[in-house]
């Protein structure tokens, strides 16, 4: 009985994971309500207005990103990421766990959420 349960659950798990990977690979970004890069310049004051979990912008390396949709999927606890909403977060982004920067994969992921450029300080 337990053996059967193990085999069935493991098989279903891999089918779902494989299915998810395939769906993601075949997904057409044009249908996503694209939030690709725009040329808008955003000031620190405007950035600070978006500091809530459901409305979270962050400035990283000179660009501004709307991470509201991504936050629920971020691996770390909300306590670690949420305080950076509405702020310039380059340092935090570059020094995550034990001072290591995020992986190139994260940089690539970030570009999908870019909404503008951070205005230079006067």
């Amino acid at each position: 009985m337990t053996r059967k349960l193990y085999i069935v659950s493991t098989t279903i798990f891999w089918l779902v994971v494989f299915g998810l990977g395939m769906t993601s690979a075949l997904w057409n970004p044009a249908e996503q309500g694209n939030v690709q890069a725009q040329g808008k310049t955003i000031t620190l004051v405007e950035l600070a207005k978006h500091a809530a979990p459901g409305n979270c912008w962050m400035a990283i390396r000179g660009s501004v990103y709307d991470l509201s949709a991504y936050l629920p999927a971020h691996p770390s606890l909300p306590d670690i990421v949420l305080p950076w909403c509405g702020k310039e977060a380059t340092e935090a982004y570059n020094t995550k766990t034990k001072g290591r920067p995020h992986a190139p994969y994260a940089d690539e992921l970030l570009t999908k959420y870019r909404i503008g450029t951070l205005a230079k300080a006067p």
Partner: protein
Amino acid sequence: MTRLRTLSLPILLLLFVGLPVFWAFPEALPFWRTVGVILGWAGAGLLLFNLLLMVREVRIASGLGGLERITAWHHQTGLAAYLLLLLHPLALATAGWVESPELAWQVISPFSENWPVWLGWGGLICLMLGLAATFMHHLAYGTWRWLHGLLGLGVLAGFVHVLQLGISAGGLFALVAAVLLLLWRLLRVDLGIAAMPYIVTSVRSVAQSMVEVSLKPLAIPINAAPGQFVLTAFFKGPSYQGCGEFHPFTISDIGLEHELRIGVKALGDCTRRMQRLEPGVSARVHGPFGEFLKALPSRPQLWVAGGIGITPFLGFLRQQAVKNPTTLIYIYRGEQDAAYLDELTALSKACPELSLLAEATGTGLPNLQQLLPAANALANHECYVCGPPGLIEAVSRVLLDRGVPVERIHFEHFDFR
């Protein structure tokens, strides 16, 4: 079993699962993300509980209702933890799916170059492989035990995964607790620190592929009762080299000087080697464990033994005569496998309350409909069954069909894989 002992395992289970879930219960997270986090912590709590059930300490085992019961819980909670941890990443992916399938995949993708995700996958795959090996009963015990160790590695990887996610307090506590429990098991049980030193004084053949080994204590003897079992490992002798693995053996007799006698049947590589045991071989004995014939109620008894399953009954009868009318049905394959039959016959002749029915049944399953007493003859009986799992299952089924309440059917598997 007392009420407290019966409730001990469910209470501990609630604590081990409830406390981490309560501590880590997320606030203001989307529904599926909340489900994913709860599944992760419930699985982690179950894994820690599972590690506790792996610690074979005499007092703990007795307090929790015996090693047989603990092992059954170990198997069930281990699988339950695995199922919850399979669902954990899928629930997190579902949270991402609300945004887009691409994001759902990004959450769990092992190609994400992200240590927390890699460790999560590493832990899950170790659990997967370790569990797969657990179900391979045909593997040699030594190989099986090493592969089973993958489960411990999976647990550690899982808790480092929690640490990497930035959950430092919970992750660190769980990791330290897991390391301590694994070390406890490794040092006290597998390396035998909890066991006492004994030496083999005699070995005699009692049936084909079965010997009875006498052991003399070299230090403080263990406080055992016949019918209980001990975990015993054999090491070096004058011309014998044991495999050093701890295996369970039922105590068939206890002498005045606390010498133990145990029945050893060749069931695998290591026990096959034990058939060549000789006086002077050093041994370590851990225990005693087992509740099988510990508290016999004052009512008629039916004892059913299959093969080496006769040992606990023989151990009991060697120490005391039965006080209630008792029928002992002893099933074995052929005459050459009928261990202790002469002695049992003599014991039954000397004890008017004991009737012995011994039957050679060949290699197939015996005709239990015919062998077991009819329903009216079983009224008010307490039934004890010991033997191979298939026989226990078949006997229990017939007894239930004949109206014996489930709480009056007792059995011991002696299978701790």
